[in-house]
């Protein structure tokens, strides 16, 4: 038996087993593993869109910034929405460590979540500011500006020193106060109310 015949028999057997209900005389085509539509993405295309930053720092660009530089950028580009000191609003409150001890957000509907009391990862700050802020000019900040704002917000929340410099090496090492409070959902249906 030639290899080609063997392949044909195998293909028939495969079609027969996957299309058991095919009518006599009906032709069924088995789906290929790959269609090959689309085209290879170039490295430049991936680089242009791959903006995410992970908790271990993957994705952080070169650059750096400290709170003093961040304060000036914050006053110019952020304060109108988040308040002069990050506590006044009208949009999301960014600064605040209370309540420091427990983590009673489930119990107390009056509590306001901030970066200092609720955000579990410092890298998320870079990722979010870089992708979405400021609201009227998203994606306009340079890496040094983003690092500076991150440093400013972390220092305002008393998580890093006023003089600390944030960069690709230091930011992933910042441990957020709420880091250990987060658990992954394990519910899978069934009668239990959790």
């Amino acid at each position: 038996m030639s290899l080609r015949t063997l392949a044909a028999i195998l293909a028939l057997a495969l079609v027969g087993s996957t299309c058991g209900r095919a009518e006599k005389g009906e032709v069924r085509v088995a789906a290929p593993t790959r269609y090959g539509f689309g085209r290879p993405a170039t490295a430049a295309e991936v680089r242009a869109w791959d903006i995410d930053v992970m908790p271990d720092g993957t994705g952080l660009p070169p650059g750096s910034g400290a709170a003093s530089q961040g304060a000036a950028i914050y006053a110019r580009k952020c304060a109108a929405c988040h308040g002069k000191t990050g506590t006044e609003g009208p949009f999301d409150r960014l600064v605040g460590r209370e309540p420091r001890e427990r983590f009673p957000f489930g119990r107390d509907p009056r509590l306001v979540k901030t970066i200092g009391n609720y955000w579990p990862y410092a890298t998320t700050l870079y990722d979010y500011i870089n992708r979405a802020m400021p609201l009227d000019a998203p994606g306009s900040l340079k890496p040094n500006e983003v690092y500076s704002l991150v440093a400013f917000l972390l220092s305002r929340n008393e998580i890093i020193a006023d003089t600390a410099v944030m960069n690709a090496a230091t930011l992933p090492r910042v441990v957020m106060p709420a880091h250990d409070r987060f658990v992954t959902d394990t519910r899978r249906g069934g009668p239990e109310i959790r």
Partner: protein
Amino acid sequence: MTDGPISRRALLAGAAGALGAQALERAGLPVPQDPTKVPGTPVSPLGQRSPFERPRRVPVGTGQGISLTPLQNLSGIVTPADLHFERHHAGVPAIDPQRYKLLIHGMVERPTMFDLEALKRFPSVSRLCFLECSGNGFPSYRDIRPDLTPQLVDGLTSTSEWTGVLLSTLFRDVGVKPGARWFLAEGEDAAVMARSIPLEKASDDAMIAYGQNGEALRPEQGYPARLLVPGWEGNANVKWIRRIEIADRPFMTREETSKYSDPLPDCTARLFSFAMDAKSVITFPAYPVTLPDKGWWEIEGLAWSGRGRVRRVDVSTDAGRHWAPAELQQPVLPKCHTRFRYLWTWDGGDTTLLSRAADETGYVQPTLDELRQARGRGTTYHFNHIRAWTVRRDGTVVFGLEG
């Protein structure tokens, strides 16, 4: 009658569902006394609703707002595309379908760029399923008021027939590498909204959808293409999707950590609570309806579960003392709105109407007390407790328990 969608009068008119002939004539739309005596309007390239019908979403907030579906105006299970609820984080982007691209990269053998034509060339699937914002029902848990309509209580859920390509098909084409566990889905909106999704959802039923109720997606729903993760919280169904990065762990974006996480009474917060638990809401009778008379009334509502089919819906017409099964209108589909009906004779007295859904996993919609016990009063998403409508002896209906 005013046309303003946010005004209270318009909201109430919308809740009532229709305009009278006099109102139309005042608006310059003549309505003949006898339509059999004058020729009607000719054929047209694009149909319109009857001018008598004025269903409206209720928009709340500006660029980052929500716009709620008028559940009380709908029949069956499908939401007309222009009434599908809206939620976005930096407005609706305008995307040219000719320039649209979807990038899949990360832990894959072949990083690939797909244009819309390529996505549509793959074998397609269609399915009906609901989409619900995980914040739906917030006022019924945290801000209970008697003057809430079904739209204001639960209008952040809608059902459509979605058409697209299964993510499993695309992922087979790009070749997912061993060790991959998650993927990031990222939108082309001004928020570049991004969520991490477990890879199992891709082998289950996730798809890239480009069709909605027989036509292209509406811009508010992600035109030209969106991620659809059936049964999972709306935010994870990333609209205007432009990039998927496959990885071995979650990315911990802002939307899945500081937002869309569930603080619990045990002083933890739950991450990645994707599935929308079983839920139901009576849409008639409900505020601002007034029942003109005692006697036969059909109670109607919607039930759904993100974990599968609705198995049953029970209705109580005496504030929970007795329960009886409602009739489930076919089709009853998994992860899809299911309409229920219950024939009721109102004796004209004060009473409270409740509905309680159960799904095929054995989960039963909890009471408000049970859910508060489990989640705490401060929790901010996934409010699937039993809703109550109080009927007063004068026929008015208000939200919540009275007395």
